[in-house]
């Protein structure tokens, strides 16, 4: 599948933002984060900026962005529509929770309720994002059971990295916040490893035989020539597929950036308790940046590695 930069940016940025909103909502409501105003301004500022820029970017690849509001109408059948509804609905409770924290420095009572409701909304939005891909049987790399967990846990992992970095910057670091990325990044690594494993071992349900109904046992079907001399929309949109030899080093790079570097750097006091606080904070910020870049590369691979069944009609190779 063609990796559109607007969609890569959207899913990475909104994942980060919703991951932060989930953790802020739950941990804030549980009183695990000090109700500090400056921290809240920075954390909610980053989360809302990431989510909003992401949603805005997602309209950039539309043919008619001015009609985007129509996408809220078909929530009964379409995961894309559900994502839009959930995304907009989540602004209300998370906004209320953020106001309470920033203005009154209050995260308990009714505000805690709003925080948890916002966390549920953010979780639902990321779930819908994952389901947009997981519900497409035409792309077996996406319609597998690791797609949705991957979107959820990567959102939480990037969100936790930024939350931990900001907590150190604003001196509200609670061990629950600084240790959190270790667990979530590890979980994300496990899910992505399982995803790639299932990708490599999945049997191919569709073949050129099922696509054309021709050939069969011992009777091969070979591509003879294309219907047209130049690439068409279908080939450009669905035909992009990265060569296997490039996919392997790119997967390694994505894992090193998204998981390896953050695991070592985000919570370096575990290994180096006497390290200078400024350095540890700097490294936590760096690991959040590197981790986010790694997730963007993972997202690029999510598209570039995915093979659409329509390519069975076009690819000279394959079966």
């Amino acid at each position, binding site marked *: 599948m063609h990796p559109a930069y607007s969609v890569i940016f959207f899913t990475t940025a909104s994942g980060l933002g919703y991951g932060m909103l989930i953790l802020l909502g739950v941990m804030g409501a549980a009183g695990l984060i000090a109700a500090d105003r400056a921290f809240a301004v920075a954390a909610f500022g980053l989360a809302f900026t990431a989510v909003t820029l992401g949603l805005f970017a997602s309209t950039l690849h539309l043919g008619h962005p001015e009609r985007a509001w129509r996408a809220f109408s*078909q929530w009964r059948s379409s995961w894309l529509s559900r994502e839009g509804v959930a995304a907009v609905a989540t602004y209300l409770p998370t906004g209320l929770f953020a106001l309470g924290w920033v203005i009154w420095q209050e995260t308990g009572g009714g505000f805690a309720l709003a925080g948890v409701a916002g966390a549920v909304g953010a979780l639902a939005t990321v779930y819908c994002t994952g389901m947009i891909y997981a*519900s497409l049987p035409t792309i077996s790399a996406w319609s597998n059971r690791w797609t949705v967990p991957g979107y959820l846990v990567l959102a939480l992992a990037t969100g936790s990295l930024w939350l931990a970095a900001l907590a150190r910057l604003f001196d509200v670091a609670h061990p629950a916040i600084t240790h959190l990325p270790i667990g979530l990044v590890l979980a994300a690594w496990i899910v992505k490893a399982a995803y790639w494993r299932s990708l490599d071992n999945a049997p191919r*349900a569709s073949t050129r035989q099922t696509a054309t109904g021709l050939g069969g046992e011992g009777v091969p*079907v070979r591509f003879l020539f294309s219907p047209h001399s130049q690439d068409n929309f279908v080939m450009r949109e669905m035909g992009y597929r990265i060569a296997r030899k490039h996919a392997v080093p790119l997967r390694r790079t994505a894992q090193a950036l998204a998981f390896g570097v953050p695991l070592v750097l985000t919570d370096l006091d575990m290994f180096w308790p006497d390290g200078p606080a400024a350095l540890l904070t700097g490294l936590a910020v760096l690991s959040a940046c590197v981790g986010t870049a790694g997730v963007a590369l993972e997202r690029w691979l999510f598209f570039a590695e995915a093979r659409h069944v329509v390519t069975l*009609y076009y690819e000279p190779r394959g079966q």
Partner: protein
Amino acid sequence: MTSLPKQTGRRLGLVIDLDTCVGCHACAVNCKEWNSGGVSAPMTDEDPYGGDATGVWFNRVHAFEVGDGATGRTVHFPRSCLHCEEPACVTVCPTGASYKREADGIVLVDEDLCIGCKLCSWACPYGAREYDFDAGVMKKCTLCIDRIYNANLPEADRVPACVSTCPANARHFGDLGDPESDVSRLAAARGGYDLMPEMGMKPTNKYLPPRPRTLGAADGGEADGAGDATTAESGFLGFIDRLYSR
């Protein structure tokens, strides 16, 4: 609404005969010609006279080689929208622009509602939907709704443009929901099949497989009169027999 109708009154579609298709692309060209002035107009071309000409077509004719040696053959394979019973392209649509008509099962796009998100093209296994970059909306085969119900046309011409133009009579149009219709009986008689049934879209259009190749005919054989030709069939099967014996 992008929720699907529980059932459709008729199930209009095509039966495409891979045995007789000669790969002339007349169906694709006449489709382009008719629809460039029809409800989906324009079918935009980009760089039409340049080195990288591309554009919107609803019909594409592929070619495959099947088998090896004496039984090997070239099969021309026209590919267009199959007007599925369970079209995922419709249910994924976030705006309601894509819909399946309850009356006849035709899958259409309302271009005034389409936001051009292209998700429907991802959901279609058959590559039936082609995005118009100029208009910013998705376009697809309409089964020529502006021909098949067009009272200004002689009744014989009220078929999709691809069907009316096919010089090999490889394309047949009708109601596949009615088991007594000509197309249903043709599909039943010739073993019409679905493309990629594992995708679960339940396509309406059926493809007829190429007939087995006749081997050893070159030496003239024994003129013993053995064969189907002596027993004249009547009715529809006779029509099919005469049609394909020409």
